[in-house]
């Protein structure tokens, strides 16, 4: 008596093989295989997810959703809940690469201005030795300070390559202004870590407020995500700080580029041709973007960067 059918399996496998998917993509898969749109059949969709998660809990995995901090889009992914001996195998990254990643995420998390990103130059200047001082379990053969050679010799080009790979795998992302931000995978996976690291949560949704608006009252520590502000504003027409009652200035975000959405979610059959095309587009556009400035370039960057891969 099987609890899950091939439809549930398709949803799970699509996330496992392809990585985190946008809500739109995930919903379209659901619609295609069940014939029902999650928008209109919310109950059925939730029921599916509930059933899936009940089974996944057997192996301490979880199918969950999160919001991309930079554009507010919802993503779905399968996440590991427990860090144990087996999950330590679940990565192709080496120890220094992971330390590098950790340093970047820490720097982003500690950003007091809640911009949720750090600039490229700072990333490349990160020194891994600091990571060793923080972790208590570094036992190296050198004895004394316990800084492994691999950390000391982590070159600039290794950093660049690691950075590229991390963005490709969606642990990090490039933000609009060419800074480095947290990627969707980090938001899905590291929720617990952000809370432990003391990142203040958004007052509205209670998720980590990595990239959020701060209360204009300097003494107040409240932060709220841009997309959460949008929701309140549309409901109440005004934003008042829940803690200190200062009124917030609210500017509606830049108009969402609707054309881009359609481009990104082509029917899956033409996935391969579309991505090959975009890869070629991207290679030529990178060359252009170095020489040509201006706002038009920003938009094309968004097209090529948000879902295409670097290589």
């Amino acid at each position, binding site marked *: 008596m099987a609890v899950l059918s091939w439809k549930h399996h398709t949803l799970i496998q699509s996330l496992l093989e392809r990585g985190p998917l946008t809500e739109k993509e995930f919903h379209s898969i659901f619609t295609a295989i069940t014939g029902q749109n999650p928008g209109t059949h919310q109950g059925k969709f939730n029921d599916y997810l509930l059933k899936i998660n009940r089974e996944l809990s057997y*192996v301490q995995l979880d199918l969950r959703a999160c919001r991309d901090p930079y554009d507010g889009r919802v993503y779905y992914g399968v996440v590991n809940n427990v860090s144990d001996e087996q999950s330590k195998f679940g990565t192709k990254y080496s120890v220094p690469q992971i330390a590098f990643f950790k340093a970047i995420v820490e720097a982003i998390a500690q950003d007091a201005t809640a911009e949720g990103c750090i600039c490229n130059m700072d990333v490349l200047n990160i020194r891994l030795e600091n990571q060793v001082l923080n972790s208590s379990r570094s036992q190296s053969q050198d004895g004394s300070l316990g800084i492994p050679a691999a950390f000391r010799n982590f070159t600039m080009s290794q950093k660049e390559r690691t950075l590229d790979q991390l963005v490709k795998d969606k642990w990090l992302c490039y933000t609009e202004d060419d800074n480095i931000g947290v990627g969707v995978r980090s938001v899905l996976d590291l929720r617990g870590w952000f809370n432990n690291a003391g990142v203040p949560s958004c007052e509205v949704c209670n998720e980590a407020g990595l990239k959020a608006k701060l209360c204009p009252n300097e003494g107040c520590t409240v932060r709220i995500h841009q997309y959460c502000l949008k929701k309140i504003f549309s409901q109440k027409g005004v934003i008042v700080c829940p803690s200190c009652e200062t009124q917030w200035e609210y500017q509606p975000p830049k108009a969402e580029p609707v054309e881009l959405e359609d481009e990104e979610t082509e029917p899956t059959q033409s996935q391969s041709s579309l991505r090959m095309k975009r890869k070629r587009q991207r290679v030529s556009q990178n060359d252009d973007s170095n020489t040509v400035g201006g706002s038009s370039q920003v938009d094309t960057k968004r097209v090529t960067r948000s879902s295409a891969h670097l290589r």
Partner: protein
Amino acid sequence: MAIPGGDFSQFDISKEEKDKLVAEVIRYILFKTHQNSGCPIKREELSQLVTKNYRHRSLPAYIINQAKEKLSSIFGYELRELQRSRPSSTNQTRLSQQSGVDAKSYVIISQLPAEVYKKYVEDVNTSHMTGFTFVVISIVQLAGGKIASDNLWHHLKRMGLHETNENHPVLGNVKQALEMLVQQRYLQKDKVSGPEGATLFYELAERALEGTVSERIKQYITQIVKKDSTTEDIS
């Protein structure tokens, strides 16, 4: 909730312990598969997870079977067993005499129908490797299951894949891509000593020899050849 498959009371462990072991094995399989990009996992490694803490001799087999069931019911993955055997490659004996220990290994394969997999699950960023795998296996199969390295590269060159190319726009380091097929056990390497020194041969290995795979490859090759009205002579 689920009725435990089989009677595990003989093993003197509680249901919770049994579930924990099965979960560990499944997680190991999933994470390892990701880490080594689909290279088969040795049965020994899975058994060790069990024997690390429990000494009952047939417990590992039971746990692995349970893991197989759960992988299928939760994820829709089949835990396929590959029999690793190294048949003698000398010309004298044609018997597939297994020299050495058979090592069983496992890969996970989606049980979804092909159209569903292709439409919703397949990661298009890895399709190039799948295509490459198919082409190489087909070449080796058409050569009778075994082909000299030089000969293989001769055919690959006709598609623009050169042994020395490290920057192919799709495959990157072409030689490494071929090496990946060896690690994933689609091919195995063999050095045959002949009158002119040792020649390197590529042979089909367990993953390519496995029933369904082998049959499908033959079908696809037939389809392609039938469609091709102009065939070139491969000298």
